[in-house]
């Protein structure tokens, strides 16, 4: 419980800059920072991707603990798509975490509502195919095999490879509330329907448990959830043509070996809210100044520093 005081030791970089930020912030906006202090209050409401949640909650906790104890950052994780529905309405959420790009329909809806949306890329994630740790045969697959497994074309493991057991494959994945589902469906499966008996779940933790207990399981989700459960899951290496590549913080990069299964993850900012509420904007800046530092800890690869800095600059313009 003694977590809210002097534990800035490991984030000097973050805390050196921000006080200055906030000082500006207090004077430039209409918020009640009239003593020139950096004390902000109010709430910041975030929903959306469950994939991004670990990173976002980590950032939020640090922000509340070290920066602005009077600001309440609330992070939920209904999933990217469900989150967008809450984001794109009157009095909607301030941020929506997303594990995919915003869709055209969603953009259109934002325009219709007069919501200005800012896309903030926060990290890179590698979509990870996982199997049960007892599964010692399916250590590597090709993208085509992944497609055939998840569309139900292959029913038994022996359909993938005759040497493998003649057991029925059980597929798992996050449900349609999730951006991960859509990324998988659109990018990995190239818009072919998923197997009808796939076990879809709302909660990633449930998926982790399911795959870790079912010897014939194969599932997919973000690298972070695999990374936290290496004891209970095996990650499948993917052979994109140049030999099998295991997902790792090194291979996951926009031009890395795992690039084909790598996707950027975002948080989308409601700019109107950011203009109205100092704490929202302040938090947005904090996110872009700390995302890369905290990415690794939560199982993400960092984005190029320039990209982050560009966003920080862009945000500061709003002040």
């Amino acid at each position, binding site marked *: *419980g*003694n977590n809210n005081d002097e534990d800035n030791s490991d984030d000097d970089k973050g805390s050196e800059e921000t006080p200055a930020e906030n000082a500006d912030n207090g004077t430039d906006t209409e918020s009640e920072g009239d003593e020139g202090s950096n004390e902000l209050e109010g709430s910041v409401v975030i929903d959306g991707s469950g994939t991004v949640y670990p990173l976002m*909650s*980590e950032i939020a906790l640090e922000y509340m*603990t070290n920066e602005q104890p009077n600001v309440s950052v609330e992070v939920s994780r209904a999933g990217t798509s469900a989150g967008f529905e809450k984001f794109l309405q009157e009095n909607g959420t301030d941020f929506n975490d997303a594990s995919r790009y915003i869709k055209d329909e969603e953009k259109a809806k934002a325009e219709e509502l007069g919501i200005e949306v800012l896309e903030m890329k926060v990290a890179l994630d590698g979509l990870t195919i996982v199997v049960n740790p007892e599964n010692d045969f399916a250590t590597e697959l090709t993208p085509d095999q992944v497609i055939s497994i998840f569309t139900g074309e292959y029913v038994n493991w022996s359909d993938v490879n005759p040497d493998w057991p003649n057991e029925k494959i059980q597929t798992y994945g996050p449900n349609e509330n999730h951006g991960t589902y859509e990324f998988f469906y659109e990018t990995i499966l190239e818009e072919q329907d998923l197997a009808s008996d796939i076990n879809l779940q709302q909660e990633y933790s449930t998926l982790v448990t399911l795959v870790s207990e079912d010897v014939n399981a194969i599932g997919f989700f973000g690298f972070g*959830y695999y990374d*936290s459960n290496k004891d209970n899951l095996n990650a499948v290496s993917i052979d994109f043509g140049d030999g099998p590549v295991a997902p790792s913080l090194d291979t996951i990069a926009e031009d890395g070996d795992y690039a084909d299964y790598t996707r950027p993850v975002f948080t989308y900012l409601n700019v109107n809210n950011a203009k109205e509420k100092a704490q929202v904007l302040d938090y947005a800046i904090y996110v872009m100044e700390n995302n890369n530092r905290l990415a690794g800890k939560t199982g993400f690869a960092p984005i190029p520093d320039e990209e982050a800095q560009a966003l920080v600059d862009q945000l500061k313009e709003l002040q």
Partner: protein
Amino acid sequence: MKYMDADKVSKRMGPRILKNNLLKGLFLLATLFGLLVLAILIYRVVVDSVGWIDWDFLTGKLSTDAERAGIMGAILGTVWMMAVVAPVTLILGIGTAIYLELYARKGRFQSIIQTNIANLAGVPSIVYGILGLTIFVRAMEMGNIVLAGGLTLSLLILPIVIVAAQEAIRAVPGYLSEASYGMGATKWQTIKNVILPAALPGILTGAILALSRAIGETAPLTVIGIPALILPFPGGIFDKFTALPMQIYYWTLDSSLVAEYANLAAATIVVLLLLLFVLNSAAIFIRNKFQQRF
């Protein structure tokens, strides 16, 4: 003349009695089965929570770092929520019970209300959640604050409190109120000075049991949309909040992210069960101690 063959009858006696004794054993086992499950359940959470419950845990803030995480926010959320639920349900529940038992004329209207209350008692809690979401969170624009959660849970347990209060009022012997009327007391004087004090232990017992139901409710709160992460302690009924069962829910879900969260969840369950245990003991205590033998 004789239909009953005494020999046969006494020969059958042995097996009949044996069957009786065997089934008696089976019935006892069935009774103990529930208790066995209870024991396993408690054992598991207690074992998982050993070493995790300490002062810092109870008074600390939420953290992603399991070692430093505390549940004061959830405790305060639950406390504030009960600060809404308890008075609202007690006032509405006792008031309604008094009306139905002592004022309402026995007729169509009274029986409609009575049937309605019985039905409300059987409406799933999740439906109350939707009601709360629609009315309090959205229509009244409260958002997912303590007040909205509290009112939702109040409606949920109101029927239980009403029925318990009605029974307690009915159990007050008529001769007590007659004695009061006999001295020229008015109806409300009689209710206030004689009937309610006599019924209070019964009412409180029912109310405490209902409140302990509310404390453990999770489903309506998930519908109302309690965030998975919220740090500031709620300072009043207009603040956003999380509650103990919600914290258990999220920590258990996230135990796949950080294995120690499972221990935190177990520790929180222990805290919640202790709270419930204290409440239930209070109810039993009140029932035994204050219930008048008229």
